[in-house]
């Protein structure tokens, strides 16, 4: 019987490909829009995830995100180190500054000052140079998308001299990090250099990176730090979440993009539902004939389920592959998409939505078939 159902489905090539296109297109639309939306929001968390070594971030109680933070006095580091359960703590300076390029252009940058001795706070992957270049005088390490922004394509930025707050800064390495939400150029340097590069305010240390001792969770140690020092301590994931929440609360992205995503969703669902229910209505005579020769309603339901499954499987397969390739290629080729990825939840969710929709519409369209008297076909 399923064989007949499949034959029925694929009998009219045009209709079948129309169905496939509808399902594939809505799969692509839903998953791709959702992915871009999620990735844009996650730009708020990149500053945290770019630093692989720390599991606790300590900051002034009023600090909110990696970029919205009030610096602390330098003794706060020793206070945090004094808390029992803190394995180690190291300072991190994160501040905006303006650089002058060799061509004389101005460009806003984020200067990240990492601990002088241990370089804790540096990202993991170096594209050019290595960690130790930071020990050289006046050296900074630029992020890859920042380098693409500052310099023409194909230009090797190693050795370029920049001017930061009237001081010399020489690019001696490139790191691979995901750009932040504002996609500013990021310059990594040592803490002592950063103090000179960033115009002076009274307190300079923006964050303290810390790790919990063995046997304690970051959450527990964070609470101890807050109790002992009065500073705000967030675990890595909490602070990443804070960055995302900040974007949600303070920008129009969730509303504007959210509407687009919702529309994409609705359009996708509508296309799938309409095409499939139209297909069943077109074939109502065939179903009637089947009923006339004694096929039970349960069999017919199975047939439609098989048809829905085949259309859903093929359409979803094409659509989701296109969406995944789109994101994967985009993240490789375009600095705007750098770091974009497809969260595994999105294909699963899309599969669920597409299958449910196709089943529901199939079932809805089928109701008239089920109610139909077999004799009606012959009228």
């Amino acid at each position, binding site marked *: 019987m399923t064989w007949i159902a*499949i034959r029925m489905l694929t009998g009219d090539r045009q209709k079948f490909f129309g169905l496939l296109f509808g399902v594939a297109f809505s799969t692509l639309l839903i998953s791709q829009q959702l992915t871009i939306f999620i990735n844009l929001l996650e730009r708020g968390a990149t500053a945290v995830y770019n630093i692989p070594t720390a599991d606790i971030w300590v900051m002034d109680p009023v600090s909110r995100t990696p970029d919205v933070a009030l610096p602390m006095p330098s003794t706060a580091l*020793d206070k945090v180190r004094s808390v029992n359960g803190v394995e180690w703590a190291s300072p991190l300076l994160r501040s905006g500054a303006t650089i002058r390029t060799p061509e004389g252009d101005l460009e806003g940058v984020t200067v990240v000052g990492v601990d002088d001795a241990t370089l804790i706070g540096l990202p993991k992957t170096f594209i050019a140079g290595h960690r130790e270049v930071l020990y050289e005088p006046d050296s900074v390490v630029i992020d890859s998308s920042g380098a693409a922004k500052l310099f023409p394509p194909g230009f090797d930025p190693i050795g370029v001299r920049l001017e930061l707050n009237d001081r010399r800064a020489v690019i001696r390495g490139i790191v691979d990090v995901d750009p932040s939400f504002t996609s500013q150029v990021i310059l990594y340097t040592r803490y002592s250099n950063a103090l000179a590069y960033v115009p002076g305010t009274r307190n300079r240390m923006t964050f303290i990176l810390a790790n919990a001792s063995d046997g304690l969770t970051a959450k527990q140690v964070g609470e101890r730090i807050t109790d002992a020092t009065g500073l705000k301590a967030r675990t890595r994931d909490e602070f990443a979440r804070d960055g995302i929440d900040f974007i949600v609360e303070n920008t129009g992205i969730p509303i504007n993009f959210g509407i687009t995503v919702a529309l994409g969703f609705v359009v996708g669902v509508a296309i799938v539902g309409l095409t499939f229910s139209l297909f069943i209505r077109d074939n109502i005579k065939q179903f009637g004939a089947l009923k006339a020769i004694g096929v039970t309603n349960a069999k017919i339901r199975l047939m439609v389920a098989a048809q829905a499954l085949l259309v859903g499987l093929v359409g979803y397969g094409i659509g989701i592959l296109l969406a995944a390739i789109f994101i994967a290629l985009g993240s490789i080729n375009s600095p705007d998409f750098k770091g974009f990825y497809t969260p595994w939840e999105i294909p699963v969710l899309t599969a669920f939505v597409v299958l449910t929709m196709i089943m529901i519409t199939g079932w809805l369209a089928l109701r008239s078939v089920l109610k139909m008297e077999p004799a009606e076909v012959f009228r």
Partner: protein
Amino acid sequence: MLKSITERLRGVSFVRTILPIMAIIAIIVTAFIVLSGQPDRSEEEPEISPPKATAAFGNADSVAGSGLVEPSSEVIDIGTSLAGIVTKVFVAPGDQVNAGAPLFLVDDRAIRAQIQEATASIARAKAARDTARALLATARQQSALYSGIEDERAVSKQEVIDRSGAVRTARAQLAQAEAEIRSADAARARATTDLNRLTVRAPITAEILSVNIRPGEYANPGGQQGGGSEPYMEIGTTDPLHIRIDIDENEIGRVQLGTDAVISPRGEANRRIQAQFVRAEPLVTPKTSLTNAATERVDVRVLQLIYRIPADQGLFVGQQIDAFVRAKTGENFSAEQAGDSQ
């Protein structure tokens, strides 16, 4: 055989068989792309390990501080008491000198000329004294002639007065000449003292830490002119070395004074050196920031603890260190607070 396969393949429907298989392959490929594209958010250990409190005292509470290595005598900025061009520097950085050893010499020609001048004055004053002595002798002899005569009428009173007056004058001249000798002596002694003062000497047995003066440069009693100037020479006793640990004022109550501290040089967190408590500075001071910015403002005060570190640790004066000091244990701490409230 080949024919049958192609025939079979022809029998296979593209739409009904190949398309679903392709769809399944597409889903598998997608799963692969998606799973391999997940961002790497794993945590990792730092490549260079930072100073760790747990390594210092196990799980016991500790108070962290940062500090500097300093000589046990503290750093002595050598100054000069007399101004002038430096003509000779006797020591080089790293030299070990005893108390009183010469460090550098300020141009002494003027003072040496003064000494010669004073010596000449002494000679002249001595000559004057000889003259005065001769005059006195003559006057006394002449006066003696008169005093031998018994008969008062034999000489006039006038003569007698003259003679005795000549003796007194000669005596006064002698006294004046002697005073001049003493004065010239004193002038020479002062010049000699100045000559000594031109040689700047080590006040204690110490190591030369830095030499910022070279022959030909001008040394001023007030130190070098201009802001941010360096002292001419820095010396200090480097055996043993001390460290000065800054403890944030909010943590003062937690520090267990008198116990050992564990210190690590910056960048060498795996080295842990036991340091012995020496004293706590009685004055809580504003924290010195090491950025050297002229606009530095300070609102954090720190308690400075002095610890002695064992010899031959390869530490240098001025090196930054991270320190962990024992904190009061729970019992200690609460007992003390209870004591306070009684």
